[in-house]
């Protein structure tokens, strides 16, 4: 579900493309049979992606048709989810998905950028590769393992230490009120943050490494400090690529199912407090699909899937537009 086809548009490619590319023209120039076949085979693969996407969309629409007919548009903003009364609405799930992903980004983005800047700009050469490898290793841990760790380590720690502390210090905000149960939006967001940090930081590191060395040298030659070099000449150039890195992370957070299901508390309710349990779209599908026997229940779950598809699509389009805008406005951008 996490959309790996999200555009990163890191400068490395554009930097390479901006150079004259004799290879490309050579490919196009020769017109032998092999090239012809090669071209159509690759085009076929590309078409396969689009066909798969369309077919998935259609299948989900087909499966959801019954619920769409029954509930219509209000399905999107109804807060009821009662399989016994067969009354279904998606808002608590949409809210839970979006807010948990935002919490994850809020925690993960500063950390990931810090990791990326350290790895590409500050760390001594001997440390860079081992450290980068370790960060990427985090991405390879299966999500159910994060979930188990969450149940046995994170949730008790949140309940005994973090949540009481937040309530004592920031308890005047509605975000940090209510009983500390250890399971809820905040715990879910934190585990998502841990899961998307390797994604964001490794892409961000690649982006920063692609920034031409001459820019750094020029800034340093003008008497800029290390901090000024990074914040005034490296980061602005890398801006669009960094946004792309964040989108990749967001894509993973939106679609994550297992770990967040184990920690978010699975309660279809909208609550202002981050301590309160919540529910995500992916979680409710994973939870209820296998045992759903009523046609309407199944259709409602399929419609949730369709909405998750749409929410992911909309967020990706918005992010894509953001990348284009920042890419155009960035100084020194290609």
């Amino acid at each position, binding site marked *: 579900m996490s959309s790996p086809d999200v555009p990163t548009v890191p400068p490395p490619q554009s930097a390479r493309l901006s150079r004259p590319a004799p290879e490309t023209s050579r490919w196009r120039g020769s017109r032998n049979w092999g090239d012809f076949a090669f071209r159509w085979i690759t085009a076929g693969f590309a078409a396969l992606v689009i066909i798969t996407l369309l077919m998935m969309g259609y299948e989900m629409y087909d499966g959801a048709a019954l619920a769409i007919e029954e509930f219509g548009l209000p399905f999107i903003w109804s807060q009821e989810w009662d*399989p016994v009364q067969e009354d279904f609405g998606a808002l608590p799930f949409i809210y839970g998905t979006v807010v948990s992903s935002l919490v994850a980004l809020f925690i993960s983005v500063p950390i990931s950028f810090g990791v990326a800047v350290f790895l590409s700009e500050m760390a001594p050469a001997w440390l860079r590769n081992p450290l980068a490898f370790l960060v990427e290793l985090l991405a390879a841990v299966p999500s159910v393992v994060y979930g188990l760790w969450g149940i046995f380590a994170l949730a*008790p720690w949140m309940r005994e230490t973090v949540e009481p502390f937040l309530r004592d210090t920031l308890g005047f905000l509605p975000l940090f009120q209510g009983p500390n*149960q250890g399971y809820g939006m905040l715990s879910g967001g934190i585990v998502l943050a841990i899961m998307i940090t390797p994604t964001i930081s490794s892409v961000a590191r690649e982006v920063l490494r692609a920034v031409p060395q001459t820019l750094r040298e020029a800034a340093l030659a003008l008497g800029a400090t290390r901090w000024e070099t990074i914040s005034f000449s490296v980061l602005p150039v890398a801006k669009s690529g960094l946004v792309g890195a964040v989108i990749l992370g967001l894509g993973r957070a939106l679609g994550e199912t297992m770990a967040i299901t184990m920690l978010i*508390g699975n309660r279809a309710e909208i609550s202002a407090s981050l301590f309160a349990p919540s529910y995500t779209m992916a979680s409710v599908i994973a939870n209820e699909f296998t*045992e*759903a*026997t009523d046609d309407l229940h199944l259709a409602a779950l399929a419609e949730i899937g369709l909405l998750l598809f749409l929410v992911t699509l909309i967020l990706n389009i918005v992010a894509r537009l953001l990348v284009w805008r920042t890419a155009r406005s960035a100084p020194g951008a290609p």
Partner: protein
Amino acid sequence: MTMTRRLFPISLICALLLLVACGKKDKPAPSGEEGVRGDAAPKNVSIQGAGATFPYPLYSKWMAEYNKINPHIRINYQSIGSGGGIRQITKQTVDFGATDAPMKDEDAKKAPGTLHHIPTTIGAVVVAYNVPGVDQKLNLDPDVVADIFLGKITKWNDPRIKASNEGVALPDKNISIVHRSDGSGTTAVFTDYLGRVSDEWIEKVGVGKAVKWPAGLGAKGNEGVTGQIKTTPGAIGYIELAYATQNKLAFASIKNKAGQYVEPKISAITAAGAGVEMPDELHVSLANPDGADAYPIASYTYMLVYEDMKDHAKAEGVAKFLWWAIHDGQKFAEELHYAPLPEPVVKKVEARLKTLKSGGKVLLSNP
């Protein structure tokens, strides 16, 4: 750059080779499987089943044991959930289905033939808890259990919990309710019981595999609820007996219809089955049954088979396997924390199995 240019066509060729290899492998497979011992005396039969996860440990034990006795019959069971089991048997993509909650009549009508419920074993759902400082077994009344899960009793030292637990030092601690977040037969059994003992439960929540819980946190699977109870002081939840026993969680004795506090022992669960008359359709709720020794939160689990099956060899295999399961198979139940079927029920199932047919021919004339 040169590297990528060279690698790309190579990887493409690899991908194509892989496709070709897969395509080749596909062809001989189906004929090969049956052909291996095709000419040996009894023909190999492969039977497919799918459905409930709740009886899966017992079913997989049965299938392994049955295969030892009858090596030519291979039974595969996918524990994909009761919903999937019902869907697949209705579409006839499997030879038998399995479900915890009986099929609704309107669903059964959609099936292309007469479907029979075959009760196979009885399982119990226990009310497990984690109350710091309490080592004794707690006694709970039905209305107290219902009000806890309705969110009306919120403290462990509530006078109504104290009333049935004299001499136990119950702490002044909040009750954290843990329920299943995924649709499950366990939830159906538990809510069925709560509905029997509390009118308010029926009114506010209802009975089903997934319900709108008035309070508490949802956890995925028996293992999720178990984990959450274990790590949360003050937690209460409902799980299958096997999980509570294996994880050494404390669980309550529940007051039954006869007014006794009964522990969920195997004998008490079979007693629950004996306390309810099995009707001719061979499915019945065991919630809050009669009987002084009966544990009140228990349920049958069922296999679903068509009365008339198409493939004779498979039909015979299914019928014989079921016959074995309700007789010899019952002895494997207890070690896996399921209760054997009561004798009168076995008799009724026997009669039903003798009606199974294939192409109009009765399968088990003299089993």
